[in-house]
């Protein structure tokens, strides 16, 4: 999700704030039966992020608005949410890239159990991550005190999938995942890919086997929502295709 517009805002834009309406899907498990929508008007600058808006609301209007965030610049993966109907990181979505003549809709990511406001239970997501054995398993010992040798080209094959920050933007954008949440989901496959194609790893077969499953890669219907949602620009669908082909070949 690189920034769509690169034209710098005219100086006057940058310094005059304007009012933006946010419509946020709230849910308080203690009182609400069903989620509800709530409007907030916030004074914003063009270069502010949606995360700034959420903070302004929380800090100035309604302290009970709840969301996760940490790094505030797109590297920790805390704040994936649905902004105007698409999964994005709140801290990487600038006001100027949204159409502010209309209200901005903000809601939790889809397909994971809603806990409160913009917070969902991430445990099912991490469970399928853990399921694909996302760690190096090498059968040979390296020379004591030395690194395993890997060529620049071998390293490049899986570079893309090492960028994942486990934000779940992809998995929760996947229409197949929404249907019953049983599908491993793109993020787990991305993290399997990262090891399947690592020349130092010897257990690719096991992971391919895990993903060659009813809930594995074959459930992907190439809808590309995941690729478009990934804030790290990972070519998720391509990685999934590579895993499918590795399964058919029987080796990475």
């Amino acid at each position, binding site marked *: 999700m690189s920034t769509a517009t690169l034209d710098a805002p005219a100086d006057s834009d940058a310094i005059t704030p304007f009012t933006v309406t946010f419509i946020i899907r709230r849910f308080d498990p203690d009182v609400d039966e069903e989620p509800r929508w709530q409007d907030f008007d916030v004074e914003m600058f063009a270069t502010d992020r949606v995360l700034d808006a959420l903070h302004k609301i929380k800090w100035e209007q309604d302290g009970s608005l709840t969301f996760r965030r940490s790094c505030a610049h797109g590297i920790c993966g805390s704040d994936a949410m649905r902004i105007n109907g698409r999964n994005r990181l709140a801290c990487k979505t600038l006001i100027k890239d949204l159409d502010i003549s209309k209200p901005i809709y903000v809601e939790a990511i889809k397909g994971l159990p809603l806990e409160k406001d913009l917070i969902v239970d991430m*445990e099912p997501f*991490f*469970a399928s991550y853990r399921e694909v054995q996302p760690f190096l398993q090498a059968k040979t010992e390296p020379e004591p005190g030395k690194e395993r040798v890997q060529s620049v080209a071998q390293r490049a094959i899986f570079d893309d999938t090492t960028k994942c920050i486990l934000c779940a933007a992809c998995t929760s954008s996947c229409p197949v995942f929404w249907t019953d*949440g049983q599908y491993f989901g793109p993020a787990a496959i991305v993290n399997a890919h990262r090891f399947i194609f690592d020349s130092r790893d010897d257990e690719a077969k096991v992971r391919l086997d895990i993903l060659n499953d009813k809930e594995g890669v074959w459930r992907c*219907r190439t809808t590309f929502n995941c690729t478009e949602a990934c804030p790290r620009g990972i070519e998720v669908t391509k990685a999934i295709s590579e895993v499918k082909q590795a399964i058919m070949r029987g080796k990475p």
Partner: protein
Amino acid sequence: MPATTAGTPTSPQTAKKQKPGGTLYRGNEGMWSWVLHRITGVAIFFFLLVHILDTALVRVSPEAYNAVIGTYQTPIMGLGEVALVGAIAFHAFNGLRIILVDFWAWATRHQKLLFWIVIALWVVTMLGFVPRHLINVFSH
């Protein structure tokens, strides 16, 4: 030793109510092409079931078959056939697009372009088919 223990403990199995919903997800070409593929696939499937049964009437008697097939020739069914062919054409072309996307890295990167090519091919096909078919249906 607990089997897997790298997760947050959640309060013991409180059956969490899944609350789907919210706004419609605003996917792009990839998602909408899949929606159409699915809808057309299902539509064709049900048509096929019927179509096999009606064709099977040839084993019953020529009269029976002709009676049923006659309904295919009414103007209303004629329009239905346009829809059917439209569905098949889309499903077929998009099916080929999916296959390309699955096996060819270039196509994975350019799936949106391919989607628009599918649409273009579909339009061309329909332009070739619809006038001719409607003339057949409405003439005589």
